């Protein structure tokens, strides 16, 4: 499903600005990535940097940074976590974030508290879809995917 051409996946969890998505993994970790909205707003992404595995990232300290054009900034983090793994395919080819933002995950992280606590601070399902669509309308965001 989509809004203004921006793909939305109801099974994922989102921050309240729909900048990042998170997916629960069977081993108790979370996989995080950028939403279609975020990759569109950022434009062509040229660099991604993920902090080293084992690094503790408190709320507000980014798991990763990106650069597009000459803009640099954080991929926000909304729960305390430890970085377990970066997606090396994305590190080698950051443009993947523009092509397939929901397959091109950025990092696997382990929440410092329980997974439930981490996800409780995020939105999912119908409520997330409503908020996601509202942001695309409010900011007049029309998503475009990058080409390889």
């Amino acid at each position, binding site marked *: 499903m989509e809004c203004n051409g921006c793909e939305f996946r109801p099974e994922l969890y989102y921050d309240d*600005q729909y900048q990042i998505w998170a997916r629960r993994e069977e081993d108790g970790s979370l996989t995080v990535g950028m939403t279609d909205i975020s990759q569109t*707003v*950022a*434009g*062509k992404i*040229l*660099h991604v*940097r993920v902090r080293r595995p084992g690094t503790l990232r408190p709320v507000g300290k980014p798991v990763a*940074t990106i*650069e*597009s*054009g*000459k*803009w*640099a*900034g*954080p991929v*926000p983090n909304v729960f305390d976590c430890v970085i377990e793994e970066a997606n090396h395919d994305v590190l*080698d*080819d*950051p*443009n993947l974030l523009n092509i397939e933002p929901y397959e091109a995950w950025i990092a696997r992280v382990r929440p410092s508290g329980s997974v439930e606590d981490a996800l409780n601070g995020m939105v999912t399902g119908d409520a997330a879809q409503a908020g996601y669509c509202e942001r695309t309308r409010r*900011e*007049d*965001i029309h998503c475009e995917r990058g080409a390889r």
Partner: protein
Amino acid sequence: MNETVNTWRLLDTGIRRAAENIALNRVLLEARQQDESPNTLRFLGFEPCALLGFHQSADQELNLDYCKAHNITVQRRITGGGAIYFDTAQLGWELYLHKRDLGTADMSAISRRICEAVARGISTLGITAVFRPRNDIEVDGRKISGTGGAFDGDALMYQGTLLIEFDVEKMLRVLNIPAEKLSGKAIASARERVTNLADLLGCVPSREKVIAAISSALADEFKVQFESGDLNAVEDRLYTAALAEIDHPDWVNMIALPAHDRPVRTAARKFGGGMLRVNIAYDRVQRRLKQVWFSGDVFVSPRRTLVDLEAALRDSLEDKLASVVTDFFQQRSVDMLTLTPDDIVSVIKEALGNAEVAA
């Protein structure tokens, strides 16, 4: 109907060490994101330094031996883009804004709006400055202000370097680019790409005059007035911690990539219209042309065509090379005598296939 004119803060932090200036970047952006700071226009100056883009590696971008021998500090910006040389003869300008004051989330549109306003301000000094996509301000095809941005949530910072006077040869020595070979031709070629206010005006304009010109243009663009101010208590507190982090080798060396992953490659070929030489900073990992420089005496009209093509090719994927060049020439009318876009593509491909230039 009376309109209320919003007031934004004007900061002039004078000439400082690079670490102090970058720490202030971090502080002012963070405080703006926390709504602890107002929208702010800041002017700044640097003691001699080489500034890396946020995701760059010093080993790949800089001549570190030269920097060390000449007391040129190496620092890392929080903004993207390429490495630059900065000394007391340039003026830095920066805007710290909340996205809601811009009316768009489109980062390219934000860059354009700010650059076009600053270009109008520079033009009031008696020259004709214009925005050159993606991120430069130029005068007659020659760059006079490079720019870049950083964001944090809903806050953003956009900054630029205005060349009041500029030592091109020193820039070439600091930056690890092919013209580092420093032949007269290489320096002349670099001089064709950049300009500065002193050369254009025939005198060095006062710092105050330049600041007034830029401030006035930005005030007009955003329908605001500026009021001089100082750092507030929150910013003062954040600054101590930010400086401790940034004035440290861990920050400068945060990204350390081997120089051999970003070789410089070159090729030259003689055509009916003259010699065309191309130098390419190549990202071997991403298979991307990081930067391209054309030189030689090939006939091309208008003259700025090759500089514009350099901008179009920046950061392009190697396997997109032909389509970037073809699209570029389809969008404009260019006289190159017998030289064709395919010829240019073939020289670039030849360079990419050649061994790297010795640093």
